C-alpha cells in the first residue's frame, strides 16, 4: 500500500472540500473495496477523508411517500430495514445476494454504488487495462471474458459493474443525491449515474471532483411481487454471471433490470412492454445489439432463462 495521510471530516460539505482541495485525495467510507484496491496499488490515494462522522446514516421517509437512504447506511442495515423489506423487497433481496455478512456490515450505500469492476485484468497490474491505465489497451477483449459484459461494451472495455444493490435500485428508479465542494446539491437518476465505457472506461460515474454522495432516494412504493434472481459459480459469496431484478404485477406487467451483463445495471424500459408476452420477447428487446465474446455468449440464453425463472416466480406468487 502506498503511504497516505488521513483525516476525519465533520460534515458533508467539509468532506467534499477536503477531497477537492488535494489532488489524489479520496473519500473513505466502509473501505471494503477501496482498501482491497489500495493493497494491490490499483488505487493509490495520497490522502483519505474518512466520512464516518458526517451523519448520513439514517433511512427516513420522504414527503412524497418514498424513502431517503443516507449514504453511510450499511448494506446490512438497508437490507434489514422493515420498510425496505416490506415495500422494496427487490432491493433487500439484491443486497443479501451480494458479498458476505461481514462485508455487508461494513459496506455502505454510497460505497456500493462506487465499487469498481472485478474484471480480472483490472486487478492484474501486469496486464494492460484501459480502466486502470487509460490508453494501455484492453486485455479482456480476446482474453478470458467469461465473467464480462455482453452489451453496452466498447472496443476499449468489456468490464461489468459488480453491484447487486445497484440493479435493485435501477428497477426501483432510485435517485442519487450529492453535494459539491461549493455546497450546491443535485439529484442524479440512477439510470444516468454509471456511464457506458465508450472510449473513457476509466470514468465510472458522472460525479465531478470532490462531489460527495449524500443519499439515495426511492420513489413511493409501486407494489407488485419483488424478486432478485442471481446466477453465479458458487451458491453464495460470488459475483453474478447474470442477475435479474424484477417487480411483477398481477396483470403480468412489470419492470426488470439485469446485472452481470454490462458496465451498468442494464434496463431498457421499452422492453418491459413485452412483459405479459414472456421472457423470450423481453430478453430479445433487452439484449438487442448485444456483442458477446465467445467465452461469454452463454450469458444471452442464460439471461433469458433467468428472466423466465423470475417471471415464473411472479406468476406463482
Amino acid at each position, binding site marked *: *500500500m*502506498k*503511504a*497516505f*495521510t*488521513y483525516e*476525519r471530516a465533520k460534515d458533508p460539505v467539509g468532506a467534499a472540500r477536503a477531497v477537492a482541495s488535494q489532488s489524489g485525495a479520496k473519500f*473513505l467510507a466502509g*473501505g*471494503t473495496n477501496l*482498501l*482491497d484496491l489500495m*493493497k494491490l496499488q490499483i488505487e493509490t490515494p495520497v490522502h*483519505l477523508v*474518512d466520512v*464516518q462522522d458526517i451523519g448520513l446514516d439514517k433511512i427516513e421517509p420522504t414527503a412524497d411517500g418514498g424513502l431517503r437512504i443516507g449514504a453511510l447506511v450499511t448494506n*446490512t442495515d438497508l*437490507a*434489514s430495514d422493515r420498510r425496505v*423489506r*416490506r415495500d422494496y*423487497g427487490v432491493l*433487500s*433481496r439484491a443486497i*443479501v*445476494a451480494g*458479498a*458476505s*455478512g*461481514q*462485508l455487508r*456490515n*461494513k459496506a455502505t450505500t454510497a460505497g456500493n454504488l462506487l465499487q469498481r469492476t472485478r474484471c480480472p485484468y483490472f486487478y492484474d497490474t501486469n496486464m494492460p487495462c484501459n480502466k486502470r491505465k487509460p490508453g494501455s489497451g484492453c486485455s479482456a477483449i480476446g482474453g478470458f471474458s467469461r465473467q464480462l459484459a455482453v452489451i453496452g461494451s466498447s472496443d476499449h472495455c468489456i468490464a461489468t459493474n459488480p453491484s447487486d444493490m445497484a440493479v435493485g435500485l435501477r428497477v426501483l428508479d432510485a435517485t442519487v443525491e450529492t453535494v459539491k465542494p461549493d455546497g450546491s446539491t443535485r439529484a442524479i437518476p440512477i439510470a444516468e449515474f454509471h456511464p457506458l465505457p465508450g472510449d473513457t472506461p476509466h470514468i465510472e460515474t458522472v460525479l465531478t471532483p470532490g462531489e460527495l454522495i449524500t443519499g439515495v432516494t426511492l420513489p413511493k412504493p409501486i407494489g407488485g411481487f419483488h424478486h432478485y434472481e*442471481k446466477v453465479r459459480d*458458487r*451458491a*453464495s*459469496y460470488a459475483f453474478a454471471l447474470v442477475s435479474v431484478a424484477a417487480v411483477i404485477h398481477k396483470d403480468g406487467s412489470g419492470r426488470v433490470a439485469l446485472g452481470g451483463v454490462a458496465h451498468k445495471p442494464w434496463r431498457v424500459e421499452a422492453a418491459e412492454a413485452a412483459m405479459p408476452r414472456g421472457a423470450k420477447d423481453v430478453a430479445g428487446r433487452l439484449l438487442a445489439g448485444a456483442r458477446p465474446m465467445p467465452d461469454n455468449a452463454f450469458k444471452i440464453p442464460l439471461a433469458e432463462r433467468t428472466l423466465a425463472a423470475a417471471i415464473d416466480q411472479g406468476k406463482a406468487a
Partner: protein
Amino acid sequence: MSDTNDLGISRRGVLASGAATAVIAAAPGAAATADPGRAAPPTMAVSFKVNGEAHALTVDTRTTLLDALREHLHLTGTKKGCDHGQCGACTVLVNGTRINSCLSLALQHEGDEVTTIEGLGTPDRLHPMQAAFVKHDGYQCGYCTPGQICSAVAMLDEIKRGVPSHVQSDVTARPSLTNAELRERMSGNICRCGAYSNIAEAITEVAGAGA
C-alpha cells in the same frame, strides 16, 4: 534448557523475523524509511478497546485493524488468511458486529470496542461456541477457526435481530436457523480443510441451546 531458549528465540519469533525480512526485501516503500531523502510514512494516534482493555497506539496510517491486533497488540488469535476480505479468517466483532479486520484501517476504529477470539473465552473458560467446535471437531488445521467462531457468534445475533438472508423465501418474515440459512450466512468464512459439516453441527448445537 535447550539452546533455542538460551538464545531467547522462539519458533514464533524466528518465523516473525523471517517474515519481516521478506517484507522489507520485497517492499521498497518500507525500506525507504531509512532513506534521508524521503519522508517517513505518516503516523497517527488511535485509541480503541480490545476485549474490554483500552489501548492507545501510534500507527502508520496504512495499518489495518488486523495488523494492529496482531503486530501491535500481539493478539495473534485473529488470523491473516487472504488479506483481501475473501476468506473470513480475520473476522472480529466491532461494537458487537462482525467485520473483516483486514479491510478496515485501525484509524477507522477510534473509540470502538473490538472483540477478538481471545476475548470470547479462555482455555479455562471456553465460550459455548468454542466448546462446541471442540466437541464437534469443527476444524482440521485450525487456521480459519477463530474467524469461524467470531463469525458464528455474531451471525446468531444477526438472526435474532431479524437480518434477512439470500435463502429466505420471504424477507418480511423472521429468519430461523435452518441448515440452509446457516450455510448461507457463514459463506464469508472459508475452511480450506473442508470441516464445514462439523462446523455446522457445532453452530446448530449452540443455537439450539440459546433458543
